[in-house]
């Protein structure tokens, strides 16, 4: 089954649309009255999108949703997704793929903040850049993302993989400040630069293939090790937090 949702122009284009109903399961189970919210107004899906559904599906995994047009202010697409595929051809708003447990989301453009928040499983690939709190947790929550994979081909914002507690996060560009802060488990890979990586981590593993600026001063230097034949410094910490995490860093600078 192929579901094509084309975003219509809106009178107030900046007001966010909350569309947690846009997940493969909704279309697999059939929808006559799917609604989305523009602020406090509940609207039929058709008022925001041109909707076209082709074909049938035997299981949720056979459902593919394609989102066309300016979806940069559409929030919560793919929330609690448990199978199937969502392909976003432009940018996507906040909270895309919150809590998803299976399936795949592909974003051709950029993703706004909280991409894959508290994700449990499945896969997100973002070909542009991601905002702050990519693959992170929620306010006050001790554990964030617990499983699955988030891969960002551009840059990611601040607090990437905050409170990471499982799964893997790969940022091909640079990550912002405090990436991997408070992480507990799982694996974070940053191909470019970041700053203050993995502050207060208690466990898990991180690789930074570029430079960590303002390196947190409470990681214990274990020594030089080779990663793919290149020399890296291995750290363990965060000692301030009785942490047992491991960091492999190509270059680092302290704020001294």
């Amino acid at each position: 089954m192929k579901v094509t949702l084309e975003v219509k122009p809106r009178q107030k284009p900046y007001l966010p649309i909350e569309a947690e109903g846009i997940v493969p399961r909704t279309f697999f189970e059939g929808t006559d009255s799917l609604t989305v919210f523009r602020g406090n107004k509940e609207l039929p899906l058709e008022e925001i999108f041109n909707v076209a559904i082709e074909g049938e599906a035997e299981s949720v995994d056979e459902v593919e949703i394609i989102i066309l047009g300016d979806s940069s202010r559409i929030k919560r697409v793919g929330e609690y997704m448990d199978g199937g595929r969502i392909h976003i051809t432009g940018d996507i708003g906040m909270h895309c793929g919150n809590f998803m447990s299976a399936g795949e989301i592909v974003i051709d453009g950029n993703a706004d903040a909280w991409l894959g928040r508290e994700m449990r499983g499945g896969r997100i690939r973002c070909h542009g850049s991601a905002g702050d709190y990519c693959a992170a947790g929620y306010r006050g929550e001790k554990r964030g993302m617990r499983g699955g994979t988030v891969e960002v081909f551009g840059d990611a914002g601040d607090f990437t993989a905050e409170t990471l507690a499982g799964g893997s996060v790969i940022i091909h560009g640079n990550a912002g400040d405090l990436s991997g802060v408070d992480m507990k488990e799982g694996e974070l890979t940053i191909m470019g630069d970041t700053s203050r990586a993995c502050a207060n981590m208690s466990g898990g593993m991180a690789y930074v293939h570029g430079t960590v600026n303002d390196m947190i001063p409470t990681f214990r230097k274990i020594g030089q090790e080779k990663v793919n034949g290149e020399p890296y410094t291995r750290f363990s910490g965060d000692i301030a937090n009785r942490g047992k995490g491991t960091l492999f860093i190509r270059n680092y600078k302290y704020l001294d």
Partner: protein
Amino acid sequence: MKINDVVCPFCGCLCDDLEITVEHNRIVAVDNGCTLANAKFMSKEQLASPIRRTGEGWENISYDEAIQYTVDMLLDADRPLLYGWSGTHGEAQCIGVHVSELVGGIIDSTTSVCHGPSILAIQEVGHPGCTLGRVKNRADVVIYWGCNPLEAHPRHMSRYTTYADGYFLQNAFRERKVIVVDVRETETARVADEFIRIKEGGDYAVLSALRAIVRGKGDVVPESVAGVSRSQLERIVTLCKDAKFGAIFFGLGLTMTRGKYKNVRNAIELVDELSRHTKFTITPMRGHWNVYGSNEVFTWMTGYPYAIDFCRGIAFYNPGETSAIDLLARKECDACLIIGSDPGAHFPRGCVEHLAEIPTVVIDPVPTMTTALADVQIPVAVSGIDADGTAYRMDGVPIRVRKVIEPTLPNDREVLKSIHAKMKEAKGQ
């Protein structure tokens, strides 16, 4: 007529020992207060009636018209923002929550631009706090981190710390050690026993280093951390560990600099670590007199302390998304009611521009910078001067602010009540 024990409705200290002299329903003298208090009590330029913007300027309108305008504006909007609240009393904040819920809007207080990060940190790791009275009577080490009480909370040091007598201290002034941590040498730093000067953006690193040293793992810490030598950090840790009772106060230098709430979290975790050796507490230096009250009221009514989104009928909370600055900067709201705050004076430019574009109503006694962005302003009595109500001090102690002169205008509570009643009527409830 002299009135004793008046509460000052200006900063989070909520000093309750002012003496006000009133003649012919006018305040003529203020004693015991600081200069900020004097300015607040003696200001005179209240608006006399609600005003509405016309093509060329402003026209006076009646309270009924102004309230009707506000109700229509809120009901027409898809995502209205109700912002401010720290300059009004708790009873009015309560009605504000009811109005927000009824209209399906977002309610946020000035917390989101001052100590919001402190609350986010507290939600992660808790709050080892205490009352100011306890600090006054017991603390022999006081740390001011990223705040300048001598200028922002002028009587904090004389009422609660450095210059105050302490019941359990023989000679409080001599026995109390004051440590100031800041990026520049402030007035407060000059009276401190120990001043730690940190490079900008280095608070987090210094806090981490202190935690490691307290744990006896100082060997991992480099010689210098963000401009502070390891030997000074070690000296501070010894001072703290030797304290009988330590109190940390922190301000926007910690909450609004790089890392924001993670800085505060690190500070709380330092307190946690120190409390394995002695007694330590931590308190945010709340700015507006009743900003803490907004958090208390919102929390017991909605479950969340600020930035609460009622658009979907239930409370949703996510500062960064549902906080005023972010909503305005991203143009995600389409009407705004402002009460007890002056965002026109201190919000970033993009936010102010959006406020000017959307319909905005201000409830405030005096013309402010925000008036310039508004379509309607409704003047009200001033809480603590000609209106009474409940406020929360920076340590969470509720204090009733009094009315010292008779009002000539309705107060926030009354105006909001009429808005709420009219709105219910319009919704057929």
